[in-house]
């Protein structure tokens, strides 16, 4: 790998986007090329400077304004979203019930706080983590 090729790949290398042979080749080149190492350090310094510049805090009223505008528009809860929330809540109840059955049946039960199977927190976590699952559930509900 020559210096021109390495310089072109320094940004994705620094961002951790390279893997395998490409990453190893660049690391090997950097170990023996002071000029390219200096370039890498200069790139790091630029990114550090960008990161040090903060941003103002968002107003504490943004959430309030968003929800007020949604309610003011008078739209009903989107059909698909309502069905999704219902499906997720039902799925969580089933999952918790099965889990509880296994847990207690195994004799390992300890005193614990009952799980709120359809809490807002669980619905939000499920939405944010399960994109394919969400699509499947929405499609299956139609």
């Amino acid at each position, binding site marked *: 790998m020559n210096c021109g090729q390495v310089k*072109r790949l320094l*940004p*994705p290398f620094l*961002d951790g*986007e390279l893997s395998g042979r490409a990453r190893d080749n660049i690391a090997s080149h950097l170990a023996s090329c002071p000029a390219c190492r200096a370039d890498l350090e*200069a*790139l790091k310094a*630029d*990114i550090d*400077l*960008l*990161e*040090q*510049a*903060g*941003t*103002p*805090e*968002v*107003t504490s009223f*943004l*959430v309030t*304004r*968003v*929800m007020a*505008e*949604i309610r003011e*528009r008078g*739209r009903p*809860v*989107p*059909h*698909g*979203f309502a069905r999704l*929330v219902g499906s997720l809540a039902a799925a969580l109840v089933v999952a918790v019930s099965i889990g509880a059955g296994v847990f207690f049946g195994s004799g390992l039960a300890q005193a614990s706080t009952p799980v709120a199977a359809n809490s*807002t*927190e669980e*619905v*939000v976590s499920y*939405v*944010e983590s*399960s*994109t*394919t*699952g*969400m*699509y*499947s559930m*929405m499609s299956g509900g139609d």
Partner: protein
Amino acid sequence: MAAFEELVRRHQHGLFSYLYRMCRNSSDAEELAQAAMVRAWEKLAGFRGASSFKTWLYRIGTNLCFNLRTRRKPTEELFETMAAPDSARPEQAFQQKVREEVVQRALARLPADQRAALVLSVYQDMSYREIAETMGKSVRAVDSLLFRAKTNVRKALAQDRAKGII
């Protein structure tokens, strides 16, 4: 609706921060963040889960920001800098303000798509794939945008360094 409100709370800071870096003033950033979240609510039934909720929300915000830039004449753009934070160490506060202004200028000189890719990478810690989903581009295109953005930022910062500003 409680679940959606929780999603808004979780993403408001990051989305506002991204839009602030894009439009360079907090008033526009708040308006766009609000508009993006309301539109996300309206379009939620059509969300197919092909991307994460975050990249989908940020894509809505990106499109609104680009549309605003298209509608607005260049002379109408506001460019604000943050007020220096209250500090018992005024020199440190002054240096922070200088850094903020230098960064804002460097970002302002970038074309909008380069700025978006760079801000999503540096401030939102998105992977190239996530940036691609947010911007509706390929990973290869994002890689190219980031290379050009970082090259251009380096030139801008080098000028400020040469002047002794940073």
